[in-house]
Every structure is written in structure tokens, then in C-alpha cells.
């Protein structure tokens, strides 16, 4: 404890020191507004790109969830033995995942088919009925995973049968979505790394401008923590600014691409809207900016101060 300083002064003094560091950092930024804005803009663009891709992906997934369909599983029992068919019937009776099921007899199916033809005599050319018996299963739930599990269970019961479920395209869409997320996280990580390096460089060059002040401060007993404090505040400010800018860019981007996207979707008979990201997602964007800003400043200042005497 230095003479003239009391214990109860230490916490307010610490707060004051932080406020000073923040104020000084803000002043520094206001003195070079163009440079500061460029940092914010760069971070904003870097954050906005993956955020925009994410919104597109999220909406694409919503598309598959919105589609109104009762999933069906069809079993084509071509050349399946009678014993196996009995197994299948027992399974269909007991499996809770099955809502109901219809047995379409091959002869019955052929008869119905014949009715639909303009010239039923055509089918007389056939020696035997080419149609297999078909079991049409309606699952109790539309949940893709349950449906897939049921489909596998049925396929296991009748090894010879061809099993087709009409939610195949949903699962394809889902796996495409997973792929999209994977690509997005790689792109996002690379862009984040780039942003981190840019912010670290900006911080290091800012500290290089302050090097005489830093040298004098070191001689006067300043710690590295004290010296990098304004830079960390600067990083947080840039990060927040970048996050806000990214949010604005994202909203503008969605606003601009909404109408053309809906038109394109309509051409494919799809009802696809582009919904705006919620407050949570915008907040996440802000936090991502803040974290990148802080981390970049921490890296840059750590590097720049490493050689400070």
C-alpha cells in the first residue's frame, strides 16, 4: 500500500483505471475514425457471410419440416415365402410404430389396374401377374427417424422384399442440410481465423504506434496487463461494432434476396419463405463479434508486448 492510498480506495481506483482505459481507447478510435470503421466493416463482412448462409440453410430445413405429408412405407413382397409373410403380419400387428396397414393382393391390384385401362384386353397377353403383393404401411408418427427405424425393422422381417418409404427425399434433404452445416462450420472457422489475424494485426500496429508510451510506462513499472488494457477495450469495441454491422448487413441481405427466392421457389411449386433471424441469433452474432474482437486484441497485444522491456 502506497502512502496516501487507502484500502477502500483500491476497488474504485481499479474501476477508474478500467474506465480510463476504455475512454482512452475510444478517444484513440475517434481520432482515426476511418481506420476504426474499416476494422469494423471488415469484421462485419466476415461475420455476415456465414450468418447469411446459416439463415439460408435454416430456412431450407424448415422447408422439409413444413411439407405436409403422411409418410408411407411400401413393401413389395416379390417372391417372399408364405412363412415370412406370416412373420410380417405378426410384426405389423404388434409394432406400436404402425398406425395401420393395407394388404394389396397382387390379383386385386391387377384387376384394379385393368379397370383403369382403355383396352383391358391388353393384359391378357401376359402369362402371369407381373405385380407383387404390396403392403402399404402408415406409420404412427411422421418423425423421420422413427419412420426410418420402422422401415429397417420391416425390411429385416421380410429379407426378400423391396422396401420403399416416401420420406426418402426428406432424408436426402436432411443429409444435404447436414453437409451444408459442415461446410458452413469449416467456412465459418476459416473466416473467423482470418478475422482474428486481421484484428490481431490491427492491435499490434496500434501498440507499435504507442511504443514510446509503452517504453516509458514499462520503465515506470507498468505491467503488461495494464498496457494491453486499452487494446482489449478497443478490441471489444471493434468486435461489438463489427457484430452490429454484420447484423445490419444480414437483415439487408435477407430483405434483398427474399422476393427473388420466393419467386424461384414458386417456380418449383414450393412454398418457401425467408424468415428473419430472431433476437437470439442476432445476439449470438454480436457475441461472436465481441469474442473475436477481444481474442484478436489479446493475441495482437500479447505478441506486441512480448518484447517490451
Amino acid at each position: 500500500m502506497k502512502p496516501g492510498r487507502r484500502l477502500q480506495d483500491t476497488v474504485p481506483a481499479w474501476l477508474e483505471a478500467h474506465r480510463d482505459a476504455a475512454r482512452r481507447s475510444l478517444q484513440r478510435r475517434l481520432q482515426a475514425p476511418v481506420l476504426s470503421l474499416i476494422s469494423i466493416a471488415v469484421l462485419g463482412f466476415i461475420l455476415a457471410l456465414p450468418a447469411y448462409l446459416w439463415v439460408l440453410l435454416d430456412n431450407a430445413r424448415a422447408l422439409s419440416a413444413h411439407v405436409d405429408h403422411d409418410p408411407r412405407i411400401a413393401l413389395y413382397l416379390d417372391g417372399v415365402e408364405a412363412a415370412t409373410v406370416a412373420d410380417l403380419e405378426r410384426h405389423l400387428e404388434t409394432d406400436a410404430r404402425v398406425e395401420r396397414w393395407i394388404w394389396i393382393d397382387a390379383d386385386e391390384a391387377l384387376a384394379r389396374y385393368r379397370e383403369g385401362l382403355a383396352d383391358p384386353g391388353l393384359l391378357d397377353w401376359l402369362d402371369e401377374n407381373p405385380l407383387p403383393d404390396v403392403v402399404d404401411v402408415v406409420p404412427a408418427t411422421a418423425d423421420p427417424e422413427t419412420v426410418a427405424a420402422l422401415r429397417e425393422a420391416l425390411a429385416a422381417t421380410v429379407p426378400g422384399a423391396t422396401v420403399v418409404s416416401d420420406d426418402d427425399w426428406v432424408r436426402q434433404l436432411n443429409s444435404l442440410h447436414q453437409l451444408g452445416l459442415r461446410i458452413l462450420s469449416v467456412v465459418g472457422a476459416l473466416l473467423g481465423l482470418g478475422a482474428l489475424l486481421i484484428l490481431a494485426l490491427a492491435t499490434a500496429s496500434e501498440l507499435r504506434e504507442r511504443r514510446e508510451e509503452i517504453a516509458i510506462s514499462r520503465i515506470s513499472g507498468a505491467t503488461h496487463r495494464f498496457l494491453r488494457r486499452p487494446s482489449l477495450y478497443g478490441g471489444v469495441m471493434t468486435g461489438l461494432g463489427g457484430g452490429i454491422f454484420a447484423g445490419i448487413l444480414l437483415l439487408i441481405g435477407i430483405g434483398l434476396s427474399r422476393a427473388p427466392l420466393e419467386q424461384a421457389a414458386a417456380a418449383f411449386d414450393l412454398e418457401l419463405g425467408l424468415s428473419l433471424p430472431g433476437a437470439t441469433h442476432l445476439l449470438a452474432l454480436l457475441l461472436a463479434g465481441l469474442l473475436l474482437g477481444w481474442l484478436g486484441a489479446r493475441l495482437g497485444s500479447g505478441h506486441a508486448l512480448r518484447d517490451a522491456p
Partner: protein
Amino acid sequence: MIRLQRVTKRFGSASEALSNVSLRVDPGAMAFITGPSGAGKSTLLRLIAGLERPTRGRIRVNGHDLDRLSNRAIPGFRRSIGLVFQDHRLLFDRPVFDNVALPLEILAYRRPEMRKRVRAALDKVGLLHKEGVNPRTLSAGEQQRVGIARAIVHRPVLLLADEPTGNLDPALSREILQLFDDFNRVGMTALIASHDLGLVERMGKPVLHLEDGRIEARAAAGAPA
């Protein structure tokens, strides 16, 4: 306060900047280091301030063994020292007040106390009326006095000055040395490097003469360790 025992400092593979230097400065004393340019005066002061580490030998300053001082302990040690440079090293991006306040900011002084101390320091060097101006607009003598105010504002126990009168005319130089004498009178130990032997001798203080990295003459307070 300061005690060097057979201290040698070598930069890279060059010849020794200091060779086997031993000296002692007692608490409350005031002493001068003289010697031609390149004799090792600055190196000696930088070693004492903990800005350089000795190649060999022991340095004790204000109760700290400098060779055993950890990196973490260095800032705390430096806060007990005031340093004055020949080229004053003021920051031209801020007014006189902020320049002088720098060591107090590092010590996390609160505003009112900081203001009081900065004013007191500026008053001592006769520049209270200049607290708001940019140091760039000051004369060389005034700039040096701001540098001195910054060195003593946190009331260090030891004041080190490296050719503080180097750029000043004789009258201003005497004025500056008189300031150091005043600080010494109120208890600050002072060690001042200067190549101006005539000026130094008139102060009537112990003088250590450095020549080619070696102590040549020994005087009372700078007795051999």
C-alpha cells in the same frame, strides 16, 4: 540503497561496457557518475534501474537482489525508482499534466489524489502554469523539468538521472542540478550521470569517474563495496 559487486556487462560479443564495477550509494546520499561518452554511464544506470541484466556480478537496489528479481516482481521494483533521461522522453500526444500523471496512473491513483500530486510535482519544477499545454511547445529546459516532475511525482526512494543537463546551457544546467539537490534534501537518494565534470564538481558531492567501463576515482559516499 545501491550496491554493485564486481559487475560486468557485455553486449553481445563486443568488448565489455562495464568491467568489474563495484560501488555503494547509501540511503539518502547524492552522487554523480562522470566519464567521457561511451564510458558506460548509461549502462550503469540501466543496470541499477533493472532495465538491463548484468553479465556477471551482483546488484542490490533498495533491498532487492536484481539478479534474483523475477519478471513478475520487476514492475513493483521499478515503481520505487524515478528515471530522468537526457532527451526527457516526453509524450507529445498529450498535455504536460498527463505526462506527469503517467506513473500515478500505473499506480492506480484516484483522480483527486492524482491531481494534487501532479500539481505538487509541477509546482516544484516551477511549471504549474503549463499543466495544460503540449510539451512540444515548451523550451528544452522546461521539457527537461517536466521530465523531472514525472520522475519524482510518485515520490520514488531513488532518483536516477542520465545526463539530465546534456542539452542545456550552463545556467539551466545548474538550475536542474539544484532541483536534484532539493529532492535529495527531502530524503530521495540520487545518482546522476553527467559528462560535465566542472559542473558536477561545483556541487560538492561524491563523484564516481568511469573510464572505459571501469571505476577510476573513488569518493566518500560512493565508497568501494
